[in-house]
């Protein structure tokens, strides 16, 4: 049996590193997984989505998952129930939690509906349709990448949160595949020497391709969108890390067994100009 201890997990760099370690433990072949919440006062959506990923791994190998929630705050329990990761005896009001969803295959329509209704639909006001289309198509790039390149055994898991006071909407996507750096090295052997941060920089270049190689990972569009709209994009993939927004940083990471993409976008009043342009889109 594997025991996985879940403490408070926020959304900082070190919290995602801890989440990475937890997921690596969950990947070990074991017929039984006990998830113990110890001193767990708060879980951000990244950890909630990670817990769903653990459930899916367990399902895949028909392992039993049990939960010890004695030392788990009611805030966390409510968050787990509202996200759908844990069953609730009562119907939960929506709140600011975005329900967690699992997509096993590339299904454009259900993904677009999820983004429109369950993610953007959390907003208390209707979003400008043009902005909504831009966000949806930029975020769908992440989904496309998972199914084209990641070789994730569970597909992808997605969830998020609305922060109404900060006027921000956040989305987390996790896959448990080979990671972006490994994907690039395998698909483009001429870049086999790339370190993880080099590979992530390469993945975000607009439309890189050679005639013989597949098209670029399409993340450039997401990077553009986030840059132009005062958003933020973090990618934790294998041992690589990228943080893009008003400034950009590429570096190393202790290790994530797959890829976690974290997008945060501002969602101000529809009459305010949202775009702070950084480059022209032709």
């Amino acid at each position, binding site marked *: 049996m594997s025991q996985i201890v879940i403490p408070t997990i926020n959304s900082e760099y070190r919290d995602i590193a801890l989440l990475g370690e937890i997921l690596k433990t969950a990947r070990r072949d074991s017929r039984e997984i006990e998830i113990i919440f110890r001193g767990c006062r708060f879980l951000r959506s990244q950890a909630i989505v990670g817990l769903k990923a653990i459930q899916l791994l367990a399902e895949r190998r028909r392992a039993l998952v049990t939960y010890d929630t004695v030392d788990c705050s009611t805030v966390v329990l409510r968050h787990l129930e509202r996200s759908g990761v844990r069953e609730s005896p009562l119907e939960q009001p929506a709140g600011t939690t975005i329900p967690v969803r699992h997509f096993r295959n590339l299904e454009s329509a259900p993904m677009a509906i999820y983004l429109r209704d369950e993610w953007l639909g959390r907003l208390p006001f209707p979003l400008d349709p043009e902005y909504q289309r831009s966000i949806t198509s930029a975020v769908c790039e992440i989904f496309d990448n998972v199914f084209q390149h990641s070789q994730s055994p569970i597909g992808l898991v997605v969830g998020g949160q609305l922060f109404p006071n900060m006027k921000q909407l956040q989305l987390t996507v996790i896959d448990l595949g080979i990671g972006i750096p490994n994907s690039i090295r395998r698909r483009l052997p001429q870049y086999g020497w790339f370190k993880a941060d080099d590979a992530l920089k390469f993945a975000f270049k*607009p*439309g890189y391709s050679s005639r013989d190689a597949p098209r670029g990972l399409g993340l450039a569009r997401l990077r553009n969108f986030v840059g132009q709209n005062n958003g933020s994009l973090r990618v934790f993939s294998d041992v690589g890390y990228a943080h893009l927004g008003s400034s950009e940083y590429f570096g190393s990471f202790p290790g994530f067994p797959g890829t976690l993409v974290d997008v945060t976008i501002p969602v101000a009043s529809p009459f305010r100009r949202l775009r702070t*342009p*950084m*480059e*022209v*889109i*032709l």
Partner: protein
Amino acid sequence: MKVISISDTFGPFCIASDDGGKLYGLIVDAIKDDQTVELDFTNIEVLVASFLNGALAPLYRDYDSIYLTEHLKFAGLTPSFIEVIQAVVDNAKRYYRDDAYRKAQDEALRLMSEGD
């Protein structure tokens, strides 16, 4: 890559649509041979829609967005320049690609000029 310094070619004021038309010619000469061209707006003080409609809008009549993204680059842009270029590009894209939008825009402008 061919670099066109806009200020060296037209001076610091990009206003006249005829100048925009000349820039269009320079761009097309380069990109039709699969070359990439960079438009450098360093030292430009004024950049307006009438110039850009002469320079960039007709490109959308002749080329698609993917080709233009691959072959046309910008340098020396301020945020306000990016805004006006984007406004002109967005309008040109719709005008030349969307028949219904083009008809609607032409009709709207006809009605407005009749009210002059």
